[in-house]
Structure formats: structure tokens, C-alpha cells
């Protein structure tokens, strides 16, 4: 299970998964159910937006290798959120390695569906 694997990474505070339909979410870590629901709603919205953006980039530059979107990262002063496909992780900037977490997520989710259904 990827969420459990992510939680084993140094500095990962929480990890979660959401459905693109918006009707389901699961999580592990230092957040409560309300926060996990909010995180799922925000992550889903951001993923939808990235999906559209790389679609536009592809139309602009078909050979650029943008499409399909794999994920996104939001970096705050203390915490970072990494998202690949429909899985996210909350990181403590002081302890976690974004590179390691993104590497693990991209490896495990390499074959995730890209049509957001």
C-alpha cells in the first residue's frame, strides 16, 4: 500500500488518496478526517487544473513532452504537498526529501490512469 510506504519516508506527516469523482478519500498520518476531506478536495481541484494546463501546453507544443500531467508540488515555508496522480503527501520541509518522496510516488504510480475518471 503506497500510503503506508509514504508514511515510512522521513518527514512525511500524512498521505492520502482521493477519487477523481470526488466521492471517496482515504488517508494516514497526522491529520483528522475533516482535514483529510479538505486535502482531498483541494488536491483533486489542483489535479484537474494541471490536467487542463498540460493539455493546453501540448496543443501549443506537441513535441514538448508535457502531456499527460503527472502531478504537482506546493511548497510552503514549513510544509510541502506533493501529489502524483490521485495520491498526495504532506511533508515537513525540515526533515523530508521532496526528491525521495516524488521518486517513490512516480515509481509506484507510473501506470496510474491519466483520464481523471
Amino acid at each position: 500500500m503506497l500510503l503506508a510506504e509514504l508514511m515510512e519516508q522521513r518527514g512525511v506527516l500524512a498521505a492520502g488518496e482521493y477519487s477523481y469523482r470526488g466521492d471517496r478519500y482515504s488517508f494516514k498520518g497526522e491529520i483528522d478526517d475533516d482535514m483529510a476531506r479538505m486535502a482531498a478536495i483541494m488536491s483533486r481541484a489542483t489535479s484537474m487544473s494541471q490536467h487542463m494546463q498540460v493539455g493546453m501546453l501540448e496543443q501549443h507544443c506537441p513535441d514538448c513532452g508535457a502531456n499527460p500531467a503527472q502531478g504537482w508540488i506546493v511548497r510552503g515555508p514549513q510544509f510541502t504537498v506533493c501529489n502524483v496522480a490521485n495520491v498526495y503527501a504532506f511533508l515537513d520541509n525540515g526533515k523530508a526529501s521532496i526528491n525521495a518522496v516524488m521518486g517513490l510516488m512516480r515509481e509506484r504510480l507510473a501506470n496510474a490512469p491519466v483520464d481523471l475518471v
Partner: protein
Amino acid sequence: MSELDDLMQLPGAQAAFSNNDLGELLDHRIAEKSPMDATTLDLLAHMCVANMAIATMQARGWETSSQSGGFYPVEGFTLVGMQWSAVTNGRRGVVVSNDAADYEAAYRALGAVGSEG
């Protein structure tokens, strides 16, 4: 060397750019053999500004709702495409190949080092 030339020293750097508050391209560098062009970078820079704004809104909402801190003000956003990632701090950005991407280094180069980074 300029800040953009510094960004081009990052592993796998394909392009670097600076933009105004609207996202309009001000200056850019493109690596040899990269499929990127100025028009694509201009669109990408607009997306970077939009993504920073949305992430900032989310951080504000999240921190208010969860009565926590650590995300606001958002220091950086990364769009992870199929073959490359675009890392931005809202004013400058760098496009790096996913195979070689060092997100930590990119955020450092963009000054998004966090309070505990």
C-alpha cells in the same frame, strides 16, 4: 551570471524564465535541443502565476479552516508534466527533465527555502 543562467545550471534544466505579475514573459533561456520556445514559456509562465495564486488561496483557506500554519505564504509551485517539471516561485521559473529533476535544488535556486528549509 544572471539569475536565469544560475537556474540553467540545475540538473536537467531545459529552460529558465522570468515573468511579471500577469505571467507575461520578461526574459528567458532555452537549452540547446530543447523543444521549448518563447511562446510556450510565455504560456507556462501564465500558468505558473495562476497556480501560485490558486495555491495561495488554498493555503489561506486551509490554515484558516484547520487553524494551522506552515503553508502560507506559498513559496513555490511545481507542475509535473510527463517528461519535465516546471518549478516556479511566481516571478521566475525553471523547466527541468523529470529524469534528472532535483526539486530541492530548484527551490533553493528560486529562493523558496522555507523557514526551516
